[in-house]
C-alpha cells in the first residue's frame, strides 16, 4: 500500500533521514519506533508532503507521491494525525471535524460526523466548544476524529499516546485496535515501545535516520538490538 525507498531528507545542512526504506501493507498495523530525534516526525512530514525529500521514492497504492503537495497526498487517502495534535484552537469542535473533510469525503460529511461522535461521545458533548479549551486527551480524540472525517485508507498516527495519562493511553491503544478492526491500515509512530509492539504486526526501529531493526513485532520485541537503539547501550 505504502512503499518507501531510499528516502533522504533533512533541514538546511542537517540530514535527518539517510536512506530509509519501508512498507505498509493493506490492513496492517506497522509500528515505527525510535527515541527522540531519531527522525520519526520528519519521516511523517515527508510522507505527508510537508517536507520535500532530497532523494528517494514514495509510492502510495501504486501511484508515486514523492514531493507532491500535502493536499494531493491526503486527497488520495493517506491521512496523518500529527504529533502535538495540531487541531485548530480557535475553531469549535464541530468546525474542526468538518474541516477534516475539507478536501476528501466532503459528500459524506454528515454521516462521518455521526460516526466520529459515536466513537467519541465526549466530542459530541463539547461540539460547540472552542477546541483550544479541551483537555489533552479530548484534543487527541479530536485530532483522530478529524483524520477519520477524511475516510483514510492509511492512517499515520504520530505519538498518539504522548502526554496522556496511563488510563487514556490504554484507551488510545484500544481505539487503534478498533480502527484497525474496521479494515484501516495504520502506521503507528510511537515512543511507547511495549504497547506499540503488542498491537502491531510489524515494526521498524529508527535510529539516527536509519532503520536499525525491522521485522515482525514479536521478533523486534525479543531482539537485544532494540534496547541498544533506545538506551544507547
Amino acid at each position: 500500500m505504502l512503499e518507501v525507498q531510499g528516502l533522504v531528507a533533512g533541514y538546511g545542512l542537517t540530514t535527518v533521514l539517510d536512506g530509509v526504506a519501508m512498507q505498509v501493507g493493506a490492513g496492517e498495523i506497522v509500528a515505527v519506533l525510535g527515541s527522540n530525534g531519531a527522525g520519526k516526525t520528519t519521516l511523517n512530514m515527508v510522507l505527508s508532503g510537508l517536507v520535500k525529500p532530497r532523494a528517494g521514492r514514495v509510492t502510495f497504492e501504486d501511484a508515486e507521491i514523492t514531493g507532491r503537495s500535502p493536499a494531493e497526498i491526503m486527497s488520495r487517502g493517506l491521512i496523518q494525525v500529527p504529533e502535538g495534535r495540531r487541531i485548530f484552537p480557535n475553531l469549535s469542535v464541530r468546525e474542526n471535524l468538518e474541516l477534516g473533510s475539507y478536501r476528501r469525503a466532503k459528500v459524506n460529511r454528515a454521516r462521518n460526523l455521526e460516526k466520529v461522535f459515536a466513537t467519541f461521545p465526549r466530542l459530541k458533548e463539547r461540539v460547540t466548544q472552542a477546541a483550544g479549551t479541551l483537555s489533552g486527551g479530548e484534543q487527541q480524540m479530536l485530532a483522530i476524529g478529524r483524520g477519520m472525517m477524511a475516510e483514510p485508507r492509511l492512517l499515520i498516527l504520530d505519538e498518539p499516546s504522548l502526554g496522556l495519562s496511563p488510563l487514556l493511553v490504554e484507551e488510545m491503544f484500544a481505539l487503534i485496535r478498533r480502527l484497525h478492526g474496521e479494515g484501516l491500515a495504520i502506521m503507528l509512530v510511537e515512543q511507547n515501545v511495549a504497547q506499540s509492539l503488542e498491537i502491531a504486526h510489524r515494526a521498524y526501529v529508527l535510529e539516527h535516520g536509519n532503520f536499525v531493526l525491522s521485522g515482525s513485532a514479536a521478533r523486534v520485541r525479543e531482539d537485544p538490538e532494540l534496547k541498544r537503539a533506545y538506551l544507547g547501550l
Partner: protein
Amino acid sequence: MRSFPIEIVGEAVLNGLLTGAIYGLVALGLTLVYGVLHIINFAHGALLTLAMYGAFVAWHTFGLDPYLAILPLVPLFFALGYGVQRFIIGPASRGQDSNILLVTLGLSIIIENVMLAVFRSDTLSVQVDYAMEVVELGPMLLGYPRVVGFCVAFLVALLLFVLLTMTDTGRAIRAVAKERTGAALVGINVGHVYAVTFGIGAACLAVAACLLLPFFYVNPRVGNAFVLVAFTIVVLGGMGSVPGALLGGLFIGVVESLSGLYLGDSLGQLGIFLIFILVLLFRPTGLFGAKA
C-alpha cells in the same frame, strides 16, 4: 474648553460613528491580513489610494456613480490582492516575515509613484449631486454619503462574518490563522488561503474607497492618512480581531469627531494618536486581542 449644546455634540458623535464605520472597513482588511499571514501589510494605504483612483476613473471616464463602481472594483481588487500575494509577496518573501515587510513597503512605493506619474499630485474629487444632501434625524443633520457609507460598511462586515463562520473557505482562513501545519494536513492549500485573505483585504479597500470618494478627495498619498488611523484601530481592537476592527473604527471615529469639535478641525486627529499611545501603554493587546 468650550461647551456646546447637546444637539451639536450628539451630531458630532453620530457623524463620528458614520465615518468610523468606514475607518473600520479599512482596518478590517489590515487586521484580517495580519491575523492570518502574521504580517503588517505596508501596501495597504497605497492599495486604498489605488482603489480611490479606480473609483475616480470609473466616474470621470465612464460616468459611473462611485457607489455603483463597487460592483466592478470589488472583484477587480480581490483578483489584484490575490495575485499580489500569490505571485509577488509570497514568492519574494521566501518564508521570512522580515522580507514580507520590505516587499509590501516596496510595493507601496511603486504604486504611489506610478499614481503620481499618471495622475500628477493634484487633488481630485468627484461631483455627485447627493454629496451635500443631508439626512435629518430629529434636530441633527447627517451627511447622506456618510449614512450610506455606514450602512454599506456594516453590510460588508456582516458578509465577512458569514463568510468566515459559515463557509469552508472561511473556516480554512481561520484555521490557517492559528495552525498552518494542521491546515495543510487536512488538505488546505495554505498559499491559496493566504492569497484569498489578501484578496479579501484588498476588496474591503475597494468598497471603502467607493464609500469615501463622494465626500473625500483623492491624491497619490491620501491612503496613508487612513491607514495611520487604521493602524491605531487595529492596535486598539486587538491585532487580528475582526470585531475589534469594527468597534475600534467606530470608537476612533467618535474620538476624531469630538476632538475636532473641541480642539478645532485641524487638530481632530490629535485625539486618535493620544488614544494610540494610551492603548500601547496600558493595554498593548487591545480590547479584543489575545493575551500575549
